[in-house]
């Protein structure tokens, strides 16, 4: 029973990732930075940036976007056109 619960949890997580990937149209290859990068950026969060931020971003040279995950500017990136927004407080 324990194992089947674990399996269900894994299946659920994979299904969520697949749906999220389909919904936002952002492949891993397009993701502008790695999890490690996000973690590092979190470490320096609090740079005083506030305003509307985007939860899903993709690569675009010359554009900058306020990414909700870190509440900091990410260079050469833009919001996915279906991205939800939130607010970062300064």
């Amino acid at each position, binding site marked *: 029973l324990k194992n089947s619960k674990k399996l269900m949890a894994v299946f659920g997580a994979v299904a969520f990732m697949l749906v999220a990937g389909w919904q936002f*149209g952002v492949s891993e*290859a*397009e993701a502008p*930075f*790695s999890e*490690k*990068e996000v973690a*590092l*950026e979190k*470490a*320096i969060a609090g*740079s005083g*940036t506030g*305003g*509307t931020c985007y939860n899903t971003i*993709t*690569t*675009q*040279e*010359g*554009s*900058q*976007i306020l990414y909700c995950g870190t509440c*900091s*500017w*990410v*260079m*050469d990136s*833009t919001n*996915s*056109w279906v991205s939800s927004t939130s607010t970062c407080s300064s």
Partner: protein
Amino acid sequence: MGCENDSFEHPNYMAFNNVEYVTEFPETFSLQNKSIPNIDIIGMRNFAIYDSILILNTTKPNGLWSFYSLLNYQKYGDHLKRGEGPLEFMQGPSASSNSKITNEGDQLVAFLYDFQKGRLLKLNITKSIETNNQQLSILNDDLPPFLFNFTFIDSSRYLIKKIENSNRQQIRSFIKDGHESEISILKKLNQASIVQGEDYNILSTITKYNNKNNVFLEMPIGLNYLNIYSLDSTIAKTICIGEKLNDIEEIQKQSPEERIYTFANSRIYDDFLGVVFINEGKKNYQTNRTKLPSILLFDWNGHPLAELKLENHITSFDIDFINQELYTFDVHSDEFFKYDIKDILTTLKLAN
């Protein structure tokens, strides 16, 4: 082609009074017969070519820049690390924009803007390759972070562009020996503004500096024109692709997904420049790209030279003048190709 246009009012145009309209190019070439360079492009974001060196911009934490020989694709090494250390980067510097790669004597060096920490660093590429040991030093640690453009002129002079006025404007200014000042010729461009809460990237650009001619190219990513100028006002010209300048107020009336992604990438050479013209709406571009891009070539007076039509999507390009080959890369599909352009360079009489 070419007129003085005072009829439009700022802040709806990020343009000079002198506008030239380009509706056709004197030469058109279709790039065909591509081949695939034998290079590991996993994690590649962008690239640049200098002499016989290919520089790949990657997401690899221990090699944000990878160096290869263009003669045989031998790998020279990986340099620049991601991290929080004193000589590490939170976000890797782009090999394509906000960095300056140039020769200092017989050494190839790169001046790198650290976007996150507001610093200027110098990477000696030649020595790093020769010693297989990164030769990186901090030149200036007192620059504003998160600049929308950082353009290196020399080690004490930079042109910068930062977001201001509640994210309604992107303001260009000049830094010399640490002192920031306004440049009169750029007031016209600085007046461009959007309403509060709108997408500030409508005003975003990629700016590059040509040392030989002392001229800047400023390429918007969401407007259908290019600005070419010098700080001493010798030249201040807008090159519009099409018959009408994009009106910033009209763009804001469009839904965000309808707005046109115009230019993706620029490359500058001593005697000419090139831009990747996308010309597709944001939603289409992100979901189902239909329009094939082209590379538009101009001389430094803004005169059109040629349109290079592509058979695949690209986000960046550069030219290997030694082997007379053009390389293209698409960050969304990870396609890296090269084309023989000997005939094109000969026809256009172009060299670096």
